[in-house]
């Protein structure tokens, strides 16, 4: 069973984010990067499936030179080979459609039973690239997956629904699954794995190789301004009788903080 895993490299979780001088994105100077969390789980799930069922794990990533570091990490953990879409032109591919279209083109000629993506990236969080890829490639799909059981010609997956509900669904393969964080326990790369990764293939792909020009990669949505949300860590003290204070707090958590 061959599995493609789509990886994105994003700023490390604990990064201190500042707005870039042009106010269009974060200031990327002095930022360290890592594999987006849900993608790391998608990779782990693919490696576990390979260990059970055999086959090949192919990682694919669109990103600048630095993304190579996350690709190498994936190879060191046990992926077999990689495709790296690396071209200044891809820097203009800033929306989910442009990214998915590029990935779809690069996967032409590959044979796979499953494609895994994280359910969304930790930076843009579009939660779209996987499904656009599925639609473009004509694959069945299931999202927010917590368990994967391949069967003959199909795959049975446990989907997370809202409010603690789950559902098993079957879809025919090839299928695209978006993987939820926490589906498994992540492994570390071993020294042996790191050594072995040095011999593994990373195929670099340019936009022109895919027949894509700037017009094909033009995003359908553009960030006009990036800014820090107004946030004051001033403690808001809530007063009143216990029942009143409780009601006020729930109101605030729901509509101001929007965390429940």
């Amino acid at each position, binding site marked *: 069973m061959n599995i493609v895993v789509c990886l994105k490299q994003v700023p490390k979780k604990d990064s201190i984010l500042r707005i870039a001088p042009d106010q269009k994105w974060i200031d990327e100077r002095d930022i360290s990067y890592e594999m987006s969390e849900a993608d790391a789980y998608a990779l782990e799930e693919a490696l576990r499936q390979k260990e059970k069922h055999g086959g090949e794990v192919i990682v694919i990533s669109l990103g600048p030179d630095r993304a190579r570091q996350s690709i190498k990490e994936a190879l060191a953990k046990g992926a077999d080979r990689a495709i790296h879409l690396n071209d200044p032109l891809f820097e203009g591919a800033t929306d989910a459609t442009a990214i998915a279209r590029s990935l779809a083109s690069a996967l032409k000629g590959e044979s796979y039973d499953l494609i895994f993506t994280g359910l969304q990236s930790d*930076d843009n*969080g579009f*939660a*779209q690239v996987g499904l656009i890829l599925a639609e473009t490639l004509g694959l069945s799909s299931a999202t927010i997956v917590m368990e994967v059981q391949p069967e003959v010609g199909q795959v049975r997956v446990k989907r997370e629904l809202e409010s603690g509900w789950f559902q098993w669904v079957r879809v025919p393969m090839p299928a695209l699954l978006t993987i939820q964080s926490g589906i498994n326990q992540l492994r570390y790369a071993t020294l042996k794995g790191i050594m072995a990764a040095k011999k593994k293939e990373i195929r670099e792909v340019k936009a022109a190789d895919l027949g894509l020009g700037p017009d094909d990669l033009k995003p359908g949505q553009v960030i*006009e301004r990036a800014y820090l949300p107004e946030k004051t860590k001033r403690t808001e003290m809530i007063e009143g009788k216990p029942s009143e204070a*409780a009601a006020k707090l729930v109101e605030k958590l729901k509509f101001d903080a929007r965390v429940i």
Partner: protein
Amino acid sequence: MSEGILLFIEQRDGALNRTSLEAMVAAQRIAAETGDKVSAVVLGTGITDVASEVAGKRLEAVYTVEDDKLSEYTPDGYVNALKQVIEKLDPKTVILSHTYQVRDFAPRLTAALGRTFVTDCVGFRTDGGEVIYTRQVFQGKINTDVRVAAPPPVFASFQAGSYRADLAEAGDAGAPVKPLEIDMSGVTIRTQAEEKFQEAKQAVDLTQAPLIVAVGRGIKEKENIKIVEDLARALGAEIAASRPICDNEWLPMDRQIGSSGQTVAPKLYLAVGISGAIQHVVGMKNSQTIVAINKDPEAPIFDIADYGIVGDLFEIVPALTTEVLKSKG
């Protein structure tokens, strides 16, 4: 309706998803600024009640699409049905709520139509009739204003809680409910779904929990932890503790937060009876929203809390549980 806004109404087993009403508020407010009219669409079978409930709101029309292939939600069913609906009605904007179901089909739908989808918005403004959407990136650490550079229909989903469902405007007379005919005969449903189920909570990695209720020394006795567990259950949160609680084995060690326990950064960290010693604070200070309930107004936990209640936790915690359950209806 090429000048109109089409609102997707989500239902499950004939019950309206309340976040659809929040999205309705977004749609109505956009309409108020652009002069567009808002209509709604409901898919499924047995949707008469949902349609008439929605028709009580200020809407041009409520379109219903009934087909056996839509009786159970599937991405293939919804993508194919909505594609036909959108081609028929030709809306300028399609508004949805950013639910798990929408996340499961809407990107496929927009890709099938070759259109752009601005996901998980928290607000909007207009600029000369053009709608600029606000969405958060980096898990809420940064806001962005997004301008659409693609032809209509433009799709936008709104994050739960961005608007208040109770502010959805009611209409003067009921909106007409209009059944729409679509052809699903050629549509193959690839997904076979089994029964939905809930499972007993198993021990989870606390670093993955979006909501945490943590208890400290202020709880006084093991027997009292129950009231905190009740609150956690009401919120759908994981329970955690400061060191003294675990040292006393009132809760297992794997529930401990702090320098000798786990480091977490959930959306909500609700600290009950925790003073906020640095050994605890290092394990949770990066939480998005921190609530502290403590009898001591000088407790250091209030220095890092977003919301604080000073008082008797044995009164406040049960009251909070009641309010949470009430808010979830």
